[in-house]
């Protein structure tokens, strides 16, 4: 439950960030975006309240209120910056809170400060006439309402919603109209061409069906709405505005407000949830009655509540507060204000009437529908989309695609992958079983081939399930760039290329930190502090950071590039000398080596430690994290033109095509994608340098020879170069020859990481990427060719 909440809320907040970022760039809010933010906040509010996280719920509520004002009143927002900061801050606070929730001892953080700020801003948005508190605007509406109603047309306006998926909404709407025609003296509806235009069904689904009517003599508004409600397939009928007749009638009533509450589908135990609603509003009400009345003792009432909703009658001098409370109660999906209950309902639960001045009564009565309209739209917002989108088929297909996705616990996928790995091993165990040796088994071989084919398909499918596009990791960077842009006062564009490139999920999770460090580094050190410097260098005043990704021979390459000042090799070298991390004379360092020095522990060229970087841990951490997932990172820079950080990571960590070679009793696996060729050495190919180091000459090129048994202090089967086998390997443009006893064969192996005990001894640095179990149960060590070569 808590997991689900954390997952949902985190992704919602990320979504929120994205929307904000997008709109900030365009510096305007579309109606759709406002609705989206509104909806996001509403969901967070609801689920937080359900988890008992009042602080989260209230903060979300404050933002929701603010966007309500923006959506309804379309105020001219003079300080967009403040608005963004407020929402970004709130989003950060919530994210931090979610982190906290996951810890064992959780103490809710107090968000009052932030809430006050938001409320104050909301009040400003509301305009000069608006009172200061958040509650006040509603009262303002309430006070203004009576006048508006009395002067408005006698028509009552209602919005009708049909059941989901009931099909042919336009004809159903027509049915509604036919049924109420007799009871109405005047009748208008929108869309008007429902009879002839099938497309109106869509409009009705999205926006509801609007009817305006005046009851005929001998009928009244409630009778008409009752007819509407009882029409087949009508889910909900919402009164938007009562006609003038209603206002007169309302004044003669007591100030009893009647509300019908609907709970979320499948929320279970509706009767108890209803009781919760009653308990919550008791505090703010003078009197409360409700039906069904026996919800506390009778579980059967939950059925009634599901079917007919839960009806509450209350008297209160602050009806809108009561409505807010109802709305804030967990699991409440929607509610509608019915004003005075239908006759049948009134009989079932006699309403306690309080004698109240007519003026107050009118205020309460008219305030209620207004508030209801305001509040009811929030839940309805899910269904309601901006008009541009109605005909937007893209939106529709998007909704359809969503339903075909499921979210799966990553642990299950890990287990699945492990199992597939075991199957691959077991298959080899069966098909190359020593018992079968020398037997002629045609049918068996045929079946075995089939099995192999299916297994490799299974493996591919499982791997593809785990592949996730990099766009998620990239998108997180927009936020960092945005924040730093503000803080550092640098104007920078962040550009994505190839963000659809896919990488194994377990790798993506490890990529976030390194990427963040690199982007920060580019923002802080890369892009010039002064715009003048950029202009002087002939560059556009606006900086550019490019995140690009692409596939290359079984690896994914991610480049973080900036067009900033670049790295000054002399400065780096001088600093390295000062820090005493040089291992050879300064003059012997190549430019590439110098650049890569910035990733050594304790190195930072920035003289000053800033909030974002300069402690000299960042790039070191980047390298460590990348290496942990089997990748490499390198730096390339042109002084004055910019810097590139190049990350190479394997597509997947788990299954590798490998060539098994033996050295004495040990078996090593060399990944196929790094092997160029294997051959027996002829005496004329061997070259020795002045130190006696051996090299092999192949087609006019010389490659260093690495004897595995020497490298790993093993007892070889043969140390005679001409008896064993030499494998030419290549990685990252570097080549070397590896000498082993013999080739055993090619096999797919499942990479099992070394236990942490062995990792403590830096086995990776010594060129061992992991190990794997072979068909006969023996263990092979998978070599990491790039680490072996880099030692030579």
């Amino acid at each position, binding site marked *: 439950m808590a997991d689900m909440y954390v997952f949902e809320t985190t992704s919602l907040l990320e979504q929120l960030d994205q929307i904000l970022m997008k709109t900030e760039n365009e510096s305007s809010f579309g109606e759709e975006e406002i609705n989206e933010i509104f909806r996001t906040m509403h969901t967070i509010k609801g689920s937080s309240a359900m988890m008992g996280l009042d602080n989260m719920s209230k903060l979300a509520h404050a933002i929701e209120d603010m966007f309500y004002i923006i959506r309804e009143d379309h105020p001219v927002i003079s300080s967009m910056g403040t608005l963004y900061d407020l929402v970004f801050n709130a989003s950060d606070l919530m994210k931090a809170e979610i982190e906290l929730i996951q810890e064992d001892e959780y103490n809710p953080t107090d968000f009052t400060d932030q809430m006050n700020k938001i409320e104050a801003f909301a009040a400003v948005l509301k305009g000069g006439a608006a009172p200061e508190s958040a509650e006040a605007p509603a009262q303002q509406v309430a006070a203004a309402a009576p006048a508006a109603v009395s002067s408005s047309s006698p028509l009552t306006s209602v919005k009708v919603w049909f059941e989901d998926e009931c099909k042919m909404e336009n004809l159903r709407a027509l049915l509604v109209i036919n049924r109420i025609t007799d009871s109405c003296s005047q009748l208008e509806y929108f869309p008007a061409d429902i009879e002839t235009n099938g497309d109106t069904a869509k409009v009705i689904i999205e926006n509801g069906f609007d009817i305006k009517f005046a009851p005929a003599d001998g009928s009244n508004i409630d009778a008409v709405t009752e007819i509407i409600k009882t029409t087949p397939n009508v889910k909900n009928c919402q009164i938007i505005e009562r006609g003038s007749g209603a206002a007169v009638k309302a004044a003669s009533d007591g100030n009893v407000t009647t509300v019908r509450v609907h709970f979320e589908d499948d929320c279970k135990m509706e009767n108890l949830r209803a009781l919760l609603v009653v308990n919550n509003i008791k505090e703010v009400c003078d009197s409360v009655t409700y039906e069904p009345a026996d919800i506390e003792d009778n579980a059967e009432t939950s059925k009634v509540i599901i079917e007919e909703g839960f009806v509450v009658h209350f008297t209160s001098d602050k009806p809108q507060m009561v409505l807010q409370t109802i709305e804030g109660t967990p699991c409440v999906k929607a509610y509608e204000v019915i004003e005075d209950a239908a006759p049948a309902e009134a009989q079932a639960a006699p309403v306690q009437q309080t004698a109240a001045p007519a003026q107050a009564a009118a205020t309460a009565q008219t305030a209620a529908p207004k508030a209801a309209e305001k509040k009811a739209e929030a839940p309805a917002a899910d269904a309601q989309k901006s008009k541009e989108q109605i005909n937007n088929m893209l939106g529709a297909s998007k909704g359809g695609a969503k339903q075909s996705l499921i979210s799966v616990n990553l642990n299950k996928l890990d287990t699945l992958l492990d199992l597939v790995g075991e199957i691959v091993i077991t298959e080899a165990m069966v098909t190359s079983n020593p018992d079968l040796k020398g037997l002629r088994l045609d049918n068996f071989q045929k079946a075995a081939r089939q099995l192999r084919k299916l297994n490799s398909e299974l493996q591919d499918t499982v791997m593809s399930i785990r592949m996730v596009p990099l766009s998620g990791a990239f998108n997180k960077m927009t936020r960092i760039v945005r924040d730093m842009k503000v803080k550092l006062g640098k104007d920078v564009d962040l550009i994505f290329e190839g963000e659809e490139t896919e990488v194994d999920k377990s790798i993506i999770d490890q990529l976030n930190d390194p990427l963040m460090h690199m982007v920060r580094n580019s923002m802080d050190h890369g892009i010039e502090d002064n715009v003048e410097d950029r202009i002087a260098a002939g560059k556009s005043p606006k900086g550019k950071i490019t995140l690009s990704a692409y596939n290359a021979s079984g690896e994914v390459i991610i480049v973080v590039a900036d067009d900033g000042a670049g790295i000054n090799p002399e400065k780096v070298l001088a600093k390295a000398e000062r820090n005493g991390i040089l291992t050879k004379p300064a003059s012997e360092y190549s430019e590439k080596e110098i650049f890569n020095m910035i990733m050594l522990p304790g190195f930072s060229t920035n003289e000053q430690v800033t909030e974002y970087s300069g402690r000299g841990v960042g790039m070191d951490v980047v390298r460590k994290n990348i290496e942990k997932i089997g990748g490499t990172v390198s730096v390339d820079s042109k002084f004055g033109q910019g810097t590139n950080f190049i990350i190479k990571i394997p597509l997947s960590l788990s299954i590798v095509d490998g060539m098994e070679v033996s050295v004495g009793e040990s078996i090593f696996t060399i990944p196929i994608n790094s092997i160029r060729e294997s051959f027996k050495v002829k005496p004329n190919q061997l070259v020795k340098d002045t130190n006696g180091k051996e090299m092999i000459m192949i087609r006019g090129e010389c490659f260093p020879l690495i004897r595995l048994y020497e490298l790993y202090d093993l007892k070889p089967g043969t140390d005679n170069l001409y008896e064993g086998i030499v494998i030419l390997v290549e990685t990252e443009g570097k080549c070397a020859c590896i000498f082993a006893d013999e080739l055993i064969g090619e096999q797919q192996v499942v990479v099992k990481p070394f236990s942490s005990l062995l990792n403590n001894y830096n086995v990776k640095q010594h060129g061992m990427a992991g190990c794997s179990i072979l068909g006969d149960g023996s*263990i092979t060590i998978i070599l990491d060719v790039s680490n072996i070569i880099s030692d030579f």
Partner: protein
Amino acid sequence: MAENNTAKTTYTADGTEVLFFSIGETIYGIEIKYINEIIGIEQITVVPKIPEHIKGVINIRGKVVPVISVRKRFGMEEIPYDDRTCIIVLEFEDGNQVGIIVDRVQEVIVVKQGDISKTPDSKSVNANRYIKSIINMESGIRLLLDCDKLIMD
């Protein structure tokens, strides 16, 4: 594996269950809660470039588990493996498994809490490196090993 762990009762009403094994003439104990299983000696795959006391890795039902020679760890001479040589597979809280090679496994005894005393607080006593506490038994004094220190430096 995790389920097994929770099912294990380490502390009975009387005290702690301890498995005793011998290295040469000395008998050492390990708390039962660490022990996953005891297997005979298996083919060990050598992993290069690691300290001498780690003999390599073995395959336990598809899991690659490193094994440590307790003799080497204690700075003693190794003796050839025989049919009494055993690998005790330990499992730690983080799910890591490590095998330790011992000369022979003796018995499991419930040690009363009162019989366990602390090691002397001395830096010069080498034993402190791997010893958790000292067990006074009728048959003599035995040493309870600290598994975490035995495995890690």
